[in-house]
């Protein structure tokens, strides 16, 4: 087996056993960090489908956190607690939004694409903060979706395992997608869009479908995020969150299957580690961990192209 495969398998095994581990070592807090890592990984994998394989730099992917989350939140606030209703509605809303944004944004190229996706995400952000009936800027407390008799999402370990299973499904789908006919067209269009069109591929349609798929998985992550915190707010789709998602994908290794997972783990682990590390250097400095993290991102952008996944590849 290649070293990349071994590392990925080991990571997945650890993640699968996380609730047991945190219970054994009595580190309940780590389970909630783990849950967030898993959910963010789903979103990052979905962003990687268009960013990594499609070369489409979307700066508005966090909008799907919000749309998936608010669909659940609004239904919950209106008294509809059933996940059987909430989840399909949330996924449908995400797909609709992805189709609309994709159809309009894919007319533009390069920086304009980056900015128009950002603008659409801001639009949802401000719409949500204008929803006075649903908490406005302050957001909305909700209760977790109910799947009566099937699964109880209020149990932390159960919820974690559900998220983990969905991450595995997302990874499986993305891996298949990358090497399918569709995936090759998407990657071909990233390599040379004009050539693909000259070959007879209606590139726009393929990209639009890619955006819709990515949006659906992004919406799924939003549903889970809303359930994780039992809370939705505009902050979950601020542009900084979209930036964080890009950081995770690039940090982990753009256009690689497990890169987004590595990136998400590194992103959250860095936060958890930099704080105590800086506190160790000087009491109180931990609070300012981003003063180290920021330049770290600059260094990654300048010198670590290919991200963490390429490190594994280089060793092998």
């Amino acid at each position, binding site marked *: 087996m290649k070293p990349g495969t071994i590392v990925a398998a080991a990571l997945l095994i650890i993640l699968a056993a996380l609730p047991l581990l945190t219970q054994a070592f009595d580190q309940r807090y780590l389970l909630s960090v783990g849950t967030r890592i898993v959910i963010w990984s789903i979103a990052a994998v979905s962003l990687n489908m268009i960013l990594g394989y499609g070369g489409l730099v979307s700066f508005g992917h966090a909008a799907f956190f919000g749309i998936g989350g608010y669909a659940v939140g609004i239904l919950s606030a209106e008294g509809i607690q059933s996940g059987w209703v909430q989840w399909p509605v949330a996924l449908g809303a995400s797909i609709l939004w992805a189709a609309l944004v994709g159809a309009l944004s894919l007319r533009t190229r390069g*920086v304009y694409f980056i*900015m128009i996706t950002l603008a659409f995400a801001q*639009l949802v952000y401000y*719409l949500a903060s204008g929803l006075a009936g649903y908490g406005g800027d302050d957001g909305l407390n909700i209760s977790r979706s109910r799947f009566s008799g099937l699964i109880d999402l209020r149990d932390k370990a159960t919820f974690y395992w559900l998220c983990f299973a969905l991450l595995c499904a997302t990874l499986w789908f993305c891996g298949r997608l990358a090497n399918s006919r569709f995936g090759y067209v998407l990657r071909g269009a990233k390599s040379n869009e004009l050539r693909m069109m000259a070959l007879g591929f209606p590139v726009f349609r393929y990209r639009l479908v890619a955006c819709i798929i990515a949006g659906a998985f992004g919406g799924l992550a939003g549903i889970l995020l809303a359930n994780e915190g039992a809370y939705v707010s505009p902050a979950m789709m601020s*542009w900084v969150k979209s930036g964080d998602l890009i950081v995770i994908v690039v940090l982990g290794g753009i256009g690689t299957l497990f890169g987004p997972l590595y990136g998400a783990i590194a992103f959250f682990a860095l936060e958890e580690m930099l704080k105590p590390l800086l506190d160790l250097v000087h009491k109180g400095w931990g609070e300012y961990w*981003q003063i180290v993290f*920021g330049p770290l*991102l600059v260094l990654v*952008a300048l010198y670590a192209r290919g991200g963490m996944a390429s490190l594994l590849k280089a060793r092998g």
Partner: protein
Amino acid sequence: MEYLLIQVLNGVQLGLLMFLLAAGLTLTFGIMDLVNLAHGSLYMMGAYIAWTFVTWTDSFVLGALLALPATFALGMAVEAVVMRRLYARDHLDQVLATFGLILFFNELVRVLWGPAGKSIAVPPFLSRTIEILPGVPYPAYRFALIVVGAVVAILLAWLVARTRLGMLIRAGASNRRMIAALGVNIELLFSLVFGLGAVFAGLAGLMAAPISSVKIGMGDDILILAFVIIVIGGIGSIKGAFVAAMLVGQIDIVGRAFLPDLLKTVMPPASASAAAPAISQVLVYILMAGVLVWRPTGLFGQRA
């Protein structure tokens, strides 16, 4: 009627402020093909540096005059340390690196100036109102902002249209290889343009300080607005940035001023006043989406 006039003036004032911020951004974008998310950090740094100098000299004007060269030096330093290595990279690397810079500067401000916001007082000689029309008072400081903003805009227009530097800037925005062929020291040109952009951003930050407040992250949201403006105007176009800034300024202010009353006709007053600012923001983004769908490279843009 007077209310409308005052709101339009407020829109002009916001538009000019946004133009200062957007001008530097559109120049670095157009010439160096650089997506600089950290431009908003320079706006914030300009305001904080100004606060320090104003507090130290006890004079707004003196403080501002000291803060501008300091922001220029900061801009040149950032350019030399980070930006220079990013010009040849793709946009994704630029987004990542400058996103990192935002985190750095926000945290740096917290370390140097503390987490609490600062405020800069309106200078005494401007803390009054003037009559713009008989019987229509307007805050003198805001009026001064309009004057300064307009002067800088005219200066910039002159710089770009009439000077050798401006000729190079225009040439660079439409064809980067051409300036290399002219035998110009590109490194120096890029540094200068970046520094210039930093000064404009700093100026916008310090001028905005007395009417908003000086706080961490103050550059982040306004940066997005500045990006929207240069994308609407067309990347690299000063004229486009100006037109778009004016449009956005009007939509934002007039929207905030008149939407609540308009909304109250269709929804309860409390909801209306909560929704109005959000909707006026939304209008700005709808304008941008509309422009890009209609013209994918902005109003005055050439390159994709």
